[in-house]
């Protein structure tokens, strides 16, 4: 497919990545204190309870900041520049680093509503990207 980096999964994150392959963003919620965390851990980083459950996330968030990439930091992205790197504050709380698709660099705004999409990276791996949330 391409020589883009493949995420190195760990036992703690396999369910997150299988969610991406199934077209859903999954986050962990602590049953003890309500903390929502990303990336995944066996324990809750808020209260250390070993009582976290996976839930399907809304996939929606807001742009916290962004910067246009003209010189990619890994192989495989050369044909995609310029692209918009973005920090997305998910509606559930955690922030993700990602890339914003379907939006011209000059059209990005602070607080802009975005929604997750998944891009295939190899046979079984899908990576969460974002695009503007239109008309809601």
């Amino acid at each position: 497919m391409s020589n883009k980096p493949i995420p190195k999964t760990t036992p703690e994150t396999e369910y997150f990545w299988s969610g991406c392959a199934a077209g859903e963003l999954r986050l962990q919620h602590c049953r003890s204190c309500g903390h929502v965390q990303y990336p995944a851990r066996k324990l809750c980083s808020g209260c250390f309870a070993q009582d976290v459950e996976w839930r399907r996330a809304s996939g929606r968030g807001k742009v916290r900041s962004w910067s246009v990439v003209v010189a990619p930091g890994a192989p495989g992205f050369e044909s995609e520049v310029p692209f918009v790197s973005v920090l997305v504050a998910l509606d559930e709380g955690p922030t993700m680093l990602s890339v914003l698709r379907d939006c011209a660099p000059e059209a990005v705004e602070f607080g802009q509503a975005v929604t997750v999409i998944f891009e295939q990276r190899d046979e079984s791996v899908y990576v969460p990207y974002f695009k503007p949330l239109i008309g809601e």
Partner: protein
Amino acid sequence: MSINLRGSVAIIGMGETEVGVLRGQGSTELCAEAARLALLDAGITKAEIDGLVTCNPWVEPHLYHAEMFSEYMQIFPSFCMTLNAGGATTLTAVLRAASAIVTGVCETVLITHGDNPRSGMTGAETGAKMTTTMNPQFELPYGVPLTNGYGMAARAHMHEYGTTSEQLAQVAVSARKHASLNPAAEMRDLITIGDVLNSPVVADPLHALDCSLWSDGGGAVIVVAAERAKDFPNKPVFFLGCGEGHWHEHLFQARSLTTTAASESGPRAFTMAGLGPQDMDFAQVYDCFTPVAIMELEDLGFCAKGEGGGFVENGNIELGGTIPVNTHGGLLSHSHTGHPGTMFALTESVTQLRGTGGDRQVAGAEVGLVHGQGGVISSHSTLILGTEATL
């Protein structure tokens, strides 16, 4: 139990190699040359070194670097450690050296760093090494380089506080002005705000001249107990306070994009020293990118939060201004040797407090601050140093 480290130890020797493009000199060799120069400066032999602190270079890394280096130098210390907090490493090393001396683990600590990422690696190797600082699952797959992480933090600061590109550029202009007075600096030709704004955008809103250099070089200091400080040929520089703050490694996990852990490391250092920002005669802050210097000046208390953009204007951070910042030229214009980068801010501080800064000397400098940062505004360490008069 609490031990006050204020005034407990002193820096009695320092060494700096040349910086820039040093073809044919390896990382270990630069580390050794810095150490040799520091020993000469201190007037001691290697037999007196019983503490050794190093950092792992990018070129010629070793899993157990300090152990490798003690073997290379045939030094046999009782205290030996490799530290790894990026640009915060140097000052965390000083804190550990002070702690080891005060607790009697060792008496004479050599802190030495050297690396040659500029000429010892190809562009592809440097890029590959840079990606190892990224989270392998949640950052690396996006192909977003570290520089854009700083770009996103800069944009957030501009949005939140109205900081302008001209104000970012001013940090680079002032650094270059100081470098022009420093024969050891890599880039000495004066630049203007227009030069910065007209340089290519590398990770918007950051221009090429908002970014630090990429250099070869090494530096070292020698630390001993304060009561021994006068037994050496050069004017001692005393440890007055040190503090650290560690909030995240990866930017997407940052508690804030615009306030750094310098807001904790600074107050910790000032409290130990019994001093405040208004008492400082100079401040060497970590200027890997211009917005970082602005955030740190705010978080260290040199100005109110959000007012750093205006604070750096009108020569305020230059010699003769409110607080001369990065009197050697900083990472922007003196050199950025990778992990050893902050060492030159430390040796410059020693130079200033010895009063041997030549054309760039801060008149009457008695006390100053050095700050280091590692990762992407991640790890922060602050050190306050002073002359004997400040004890």
